């Protein structure tokens, strides 16, 4: 499974890690829904740490599509909310 961290690159990660990633992702989403910035940041950083720890970076010259995409490390909750709703946020 290929996971991209925006602003950082792509990681190849074993499918067995999926359940842990999903758990953190659920927390992340719940935090966004509750409008809880602190919980959001904690969940996001937890997710990013997991991906970095368990995944191996893909070579830069690969052109593979990612299965999952994660917001950048310093993303605010508001930014992520717009990322989910507004396609215009991604230029090009």
């Amino acid at each position, binding site marked *: 499974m290929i*996971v991209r961290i925006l602003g950082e690159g792509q990681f190849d990660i074993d499918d067995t890690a999926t359940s842990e990633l999903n758990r953190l992702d659920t927390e992340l989403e719940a935090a966004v829904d509750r409008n809880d910035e602190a919980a959001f940041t904690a969940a996001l950083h937890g997710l990013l740490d997991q991906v970095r720890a368990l995944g191996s970076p893909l070579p*830069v010259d690969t*052109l593979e*599509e990612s299965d*999952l995409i994660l917001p950048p490390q310093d993303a605010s909750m508001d930014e992520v909310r717009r990322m989910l709703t507004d396609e215009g946020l991604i*230029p090009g």
Partner: protein
Amino acid sequence: MVAAKKLMKGTAARMGVMKRVQLVFKAKANKALDKMEDPRETLDYSYQRQLELLTKVRRGVADVATSRKRVELQMNQLQQQANKLEDQARKALGMGREDLARAALERKASAQSQLNDLQVQYAQLQAEEEKLTVASQRLQAKVDAFRTRKETIKATYTAAEAQTRINEAFTGISEEMGDVGMAIQRAEDKTAQMQARAGAIDELMASGALDDAVGGSSRDDIQNELDMMSASSDVERELSRLKGEITAGAPKQLEGGANGNSQAAPQAQQGQGTPYAPPPPAPGQGTQPTQQAQPTQQAQPAGIPASDLPAEPQDREGS
């Protein structure tokens, strides 16, 4: 793409953030692909867009660097100001003016807090610059890979066979392009914010609220007061020196007659009260009453001949 959208809306709550973001990126790529009629055209068109984005991200790096340098310049100015204000506070204390020292230190605290703020901004800009630099290197590698693949696809496959491979390459690169495009956008936003703040600090410095001491501007009232105090203490010193000389010279003048003594006393008093009073009119001017000369003339005892006044310094030099 339509399916992806329905999926996003219908099951958003269960899908998780990671999948939803991925689908947004994919939808964007699909939308661009849908517009292309000839798949091979897609390759060339996409390659052009990639080169444009590469240029854009490099320009982004340069823009952020410019902003960072501006912040750096302001930090240097503020540091100089803080140093100068501390120096002024020290001088003011030395002259026994705690009020002035306090005012200088208050301004120093204000400059220092601006400086701390700028340090945070500087670090942020530095981080953005680094991110964009890495992003441009990554994009360059992917664009190179895309170009190679583009040629292979064009050379080896029929239009029909090529479609799938073209779609793969296109989706892969467009995800990267979306990522880089977002990085540029974020850097631009941050830079714009900082430029607004930098502009505000420039205005603040120009207004003198932060003490415009840097560059020796005339708006620096603390320095003015210190200069004035130092000047007036020079005047006091001169005065007491003169007084000492007059006292020492008094017996000489007494010998000459009582008239000389009565002449010296009002002169000294006048000098003490107004240290910056214009000098007494020269003999030639004294006979023509101009507006400037009048107050000085009135302050002098009417009986003194104007020609006696310039003689005084000569006496002093002789003693």
